């Protein structure tokens, strides 16, 4: 197994210049975050946070500190309403599956409403619960830019709707939903419906006030804020009852058994500190780079489509564009050979040979989705990174278009 990959890497070689834009799928952890985690592996707080000894209490301290910090950044009054999980995927599963498990007796006749562009860690648990317990899952369509229309959402919410999940920001095309309007519509149509939002891609990019917005459940993920992979969190409002789909020995979390991964939680905390220490300046800095990248590509490369909205309703770190007549997976490999690391929503890069469901949901044809490339930027990018990228992309696209059978 590993021999093949080793040979592949040797054949690839390490490009002289490397720029990592695949922050959607995972990313590097800044030194300060690594340093914040290190002591918790072997110097302090390496114990179980629910055991009565000094090292255990050190663990507990950082777990609580992290919850307090996250609570503060999200306008959550009671930090105890935050549950740590071992990923964003798990947080979404806890929210969706956990809520539907708790309400499984109601199964038949009850409705779950999610948007068509949710992360698969929302859509799949909803479908799974529907198979198990008979809930009806309804996917709300979005418009060509990925927006759920509040007026339309009204028609999807009725007295049988028990759960609604619509993400704050889309992870692929950057659409910032009019989340306040959506919640207001849901709550006025059915005050008993619970509203979950996957904010993994919104957190640290747009301000969110959970209690003002009247959000019932909210998901975030460590590696989406330059923290470590393998740690996530779910906010659960008081009064919203869940049954954990995971069973085992409890520790700090009632809803997520297993020992909390304390070093990663410490890293999560540091990452959040960094992201919120200079929020407006950082977001604006990234926005300028992103705008330069998108404009530069549109100026230099013909036959390019922007996926998702342009302007203020697009999250500032996201650029997603379709290069027509080239296949996206081939383009990711070509760019990789030049040290530019991105991902594609092409069928050729998926397990099921289907293009991204998000791109199809906004009405992209298959051949438009196949040429899609997703860039995610952060304050660790520099202007010269963008210059280099703008230098490489036209050549890379040109080479593949020359090969292309699609004329």
């Amino acid at each position, binding site marked *: 197994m590993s021999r093949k990959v080793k040979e592949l890497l040797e054949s690839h070689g390490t490009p002289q210049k490397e720029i990592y834009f695949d922050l959607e799928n995972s990313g590097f952890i800044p030194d300060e975050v690594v340093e914040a985690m290190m002591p918790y592996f072997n110097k302090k707080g390496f114990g179980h946070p629910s055991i009565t000894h000094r090292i255990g209490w050190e663990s507990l301290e950082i777990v609580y500190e992290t919850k307090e910090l996250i609570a503060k950044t999200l306008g959550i009054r009671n930090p105890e309403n935050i549950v740590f999980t071992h990923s964003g995927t798990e947080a979404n599963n806890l929210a969706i599956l956990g809520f539907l498990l708790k309400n499984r007796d109601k199964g038949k006749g009850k409705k779950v409403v999610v948007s068509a562009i949710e992360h698969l860690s929302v859509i799949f648990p909803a479908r799974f619960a529907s198979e198990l317990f008979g809930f009806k899952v309804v996917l709300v369509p979005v418009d060509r830019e990925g927006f759920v229309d509040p007026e339309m959402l009204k028609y999807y919410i009725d007295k049988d709707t028990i759960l609604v999940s619509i993400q704050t920001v889309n992870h692929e095309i950057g659409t910032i939903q009019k989340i306040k309007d959506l919640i207001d519509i849901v709550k006025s149509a059915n005050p008993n419906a619970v509203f979950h939002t996957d904010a993994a891609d919104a957190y640290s990019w747009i301000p969110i006030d959970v209690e003002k917005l009247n959000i019932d459940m909210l998901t975030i993920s460590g590696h989406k804020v330059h923290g470590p992979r393998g740690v996530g969190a779910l906010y659960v409002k008081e009064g919203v009852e869940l049954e954990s789909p995971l069973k085992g020995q409890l520790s700090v979390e009632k809803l997520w058994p297993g020992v909390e991964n304390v070093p990663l939680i410490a890293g999560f905390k540091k990452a959040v500190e960094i992201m919120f220490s200079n929020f407006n300046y950082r977001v604006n800095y990234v926005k300028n780079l992103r705008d330069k990248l998108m404009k530069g590509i549109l100026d230099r490369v013909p036959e390019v489509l922007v996926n998702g909205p342009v302007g203020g309703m697009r999250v500032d770190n996201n650029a997603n564009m379709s290069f027509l007549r080239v296949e996206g997976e081939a383009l990711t490999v070509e760019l990789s050979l030049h040290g530019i690391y991105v991902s594609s929503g092409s069928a*050729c890069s998926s397990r099921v040979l289907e293009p991204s469901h998000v791109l199809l949901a906004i009405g992209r044809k298959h051949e438009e989705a196949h040429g899609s490339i997703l860039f995610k930027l952060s304050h660790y990018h520099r202007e010269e990174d963008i210059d280099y990228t703008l230098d490489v992309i036209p050549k890379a696209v040109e080479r593949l278009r020359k090969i292309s059978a699609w004329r």
Partner: protein
Amino acid sequence: MSTRIPLPYSPKVLEIFRNPKNLGPLEDATIVESAGSPACGDMIRLYLKIVNIDGQDIVERATFESYGCAANIAAASILTEMIKGKRVEDAWRISWKMLSDELGGLPPIKYHCSILAVGALKRGVRAYYKKIGKHPEWLPKDLTIEEKQVFEEEEMMERYYKSMKALGEVR
């Protein structure tokens, strides 16, 4: 993103992807044949120059264009190399598996990239004999596995677009 899968390409795929051979249209091609479509996400066009030397049909040259993944581009490139100078009958006998092995073994999810290339070749061979009005004994009437697969992929997309059009989901 959509669901992901690890794709450890062989160094050979990467190498050929970097420097594909026999690229682009062939001016004096006897046969031009394609398989797949942009909507399927992959499409190959093969240009074959077939000559008859002493009563033998020979592939004198082959070139390609590919709209597909890295494996697809590598498969098309290596196939054009493999059939160059071969008797058409021998070119016909190349299977998708032989091509995949030649590429250092493709991951299973990428088998169809090899199938597509071989499918285009087999279509091309049939088209050639149709054009010259001959039917050699070795050429089976029934479609080969590669031709069937390519056909299915193309049909599936056509059906998909028909149903989406009916739903008003596609412009």
